């Protein structure tokens, strides 16, 4: 669209959505949130499949009508159920990344990227296309067809096709769903850095908390059409508002870590005031989110016995609370580490807040998620 080429930015709140979408089958999806543009924020729409995440994205894109409420973008009204007004998808300044990229199979990469650049002459169009493809590192693939691209390449081409039109908002539907596990980690690292440099507000749908940590500034947890919690990914994952969120997104320990050194397949990371050992992630990234599942942490009393676990951290118990059949024990070991132990163990060890205790876990149980120069998000910091 011509208007987008001038780079005019809409006012401060980029997207404000407050609507309901009701299906004939009975399910109602409610969405109410604001996505800021200054600075541009990447929000994660998080939830299990069937929660209504994709539907919310499709309503914002204008692909589905809303039942009630409104969707505003800057000072434009995109959807208003009251006046039955709805701007068609063609005239919404947004870039939509489909799950499996939806590259047109009958067109080359060049023609795919140029597809939405109507109204420009040939040389201008080619210049824009090549510029966008260079930015995404796919300029060597211009003459290929989509079936000759790997999953990661396909996603970059799809991003180029969207960004060449300079959208005011990016919508990404499960950006890693179409990729295999190995490619996923690589592409996730790339995308998280890329989204941050881009300065376009983005809404990312995912059911994977690793994606949320790697990409998100904000996180909206959704289940069965309702928003359960909003906050930074770190807050939501480590301090779920209630049981429901905990069951969906509870990751007991998430903290910021920095790579200090590596030797023979392991890496040493500084986390808060402590150091811990993890498997060498094998990337150049130095900043990580580290996460440890509560089931993988063992609590020990007194001097640590000899064991194969590489990590033995000492600290004091901060909090104990029951979680289903288990006890959830938070220990301050220089960062907040949470262990899940049986009630019997808690009794035998006589666990109470304030008690000194040692926590052990294997290096292989420390999950590392690259963190591309993330701003803010202080709760994890000591």
């Amino acid at each position, binding site marked *: *669209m011509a208007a987008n080429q001038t780079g005019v930015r809409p006012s401060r709140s980029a997207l404000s959505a407050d609507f309901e979408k009701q*299906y004939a089958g009975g*399910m109602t*999806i409610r969405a109410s949130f604001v996505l800021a543009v200054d600075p541009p924020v990447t929000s994660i729409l998080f939830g299990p*499949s*069937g*929660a*209504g*995440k*994709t*539907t919310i994205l499709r309503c914002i*894109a204008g*692909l589905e009508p809303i039942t009630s409420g409104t969707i505003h973008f800057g000072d434009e009204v995109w959807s208003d159920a009251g006046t039955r007004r709805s701007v*068609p*998808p*063609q*005239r*919404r300044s*947004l*870039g*939509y990344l*489909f*799950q*499996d990229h*939806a590259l*047109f*199979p*009958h*067109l080359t990469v060049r023609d795919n990227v140029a*597809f*939405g650049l*109507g109204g420009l002459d040939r040389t201008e169009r080619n210049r824009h296309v090549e510029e966008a493809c260079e930015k995404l590192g796919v300029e060597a693939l211009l003459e290929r067809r989509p*079936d000759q691209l790997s999953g990661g390449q396909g996603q970059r081409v799809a991003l180029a*096709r*969207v960004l060449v*039109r300079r959208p005011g908002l990016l919508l990404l539907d499960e950006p890693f*769903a179409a990729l295999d596990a190995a490619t996923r980690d690589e592409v996730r690292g790339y995308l998280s850095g890329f989204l941050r440099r881009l300065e376009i507000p983005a809404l990312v749908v995912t059911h994977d908390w690793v994606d949320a940590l790697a990409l998100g500034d904000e996180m909206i947890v959704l289940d069965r059409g309702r928003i359960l919690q909003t906050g930074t990914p770190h807050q939501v994952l480590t301090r779920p508002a209630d049981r429901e969120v905990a069951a969906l997104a509870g990751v007991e320990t998430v903290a910021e870590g920095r790579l200090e050194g590596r030797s023979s397949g392991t890496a040493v990371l500084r986390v808060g005031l402590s150091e811990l050992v993890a498997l060498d992630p094998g990337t150049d990234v130095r900043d990580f989110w580290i996460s440890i599942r509560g089931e993988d942490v063992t609590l020990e009393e007194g001097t640590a016995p000899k064991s194969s676990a590489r990590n033995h951290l000492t600290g004091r118990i901060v909090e104990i609370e029951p979680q289903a059949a288990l006890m959830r024990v938070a220990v301050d070991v220089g960062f907040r580490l949470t262990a899940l132990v049986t009630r019997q163990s808690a009794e035998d060890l006589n666990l109470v807040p304030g008690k000194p205790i040692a926590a052990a876990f294997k290096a292989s149980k420390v999950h590392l998620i690259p963190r591309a120069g993330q701003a803010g998000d202080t709760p994890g910091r000591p």
Partner: protein
Amino acid sequence: MNYTALWTTLELAAITSLLLLPIGIPIAYWVAYSGWRWKFLVEAAVALPLVLPPTVLGFYVLVAMGPRSPLGQWYDSVVGHPLPFTFEGLVVASTLYSLPFAVQPMAAAFSMVEPKYLEASWLLGVSRLGTFFRVIVPQSIGGLVTGLVLSFAHTLGEFGVVLMVGGNIEGVTRTVSIDIYDDVQALNYAGANRTALALLVFSFVVLSSVYAINTRIWTRWPQTRPASARAEAR
């Protein structure tokens, strides 16, 4: 072989199949994408010529074009002569008669185009009409060619409708199939055989080229349809 009849036949088939492009494509598009609950009625009406005896269709077309019908009277007043037993009348009748042969493969091809491609196109700012020409048509070439060729081949072989509506006027409405019938009636088996064989060979060549084209197109763009793609939250 009766070359006049052959020429009349080819002319009729070519005009009919070309006419069916602008008529068949919009109908096929509507059939493929409309969510109207009574759509099946239209689909059934379009498919009627597949099962109706050609004489039934021919009879009603004749009545509709006849001097007593408003349509026939209107045509007579505009053009100056009635429609039945003319080449134009034949074109109208065969267009109706071959409609399903054009619409069905086209509609099938249109509905094979995955919705995500249409949505991707809209979201890139391209109008619905632009999306039709830039996304749907290129991905439906096989179906469009099939529709075109099938309606051409089907018109070649018409008999009942042509006889009912066109009569049997040499150089105007006598087609190859009627010529064969005349030859057989006149016990000219050799002549009938020559024409019949030519028609048989021609039809076979046309159809096998359609199937060949389709095979090539489908292998070139393997259609993978992830079931999960649109299943979420619907």
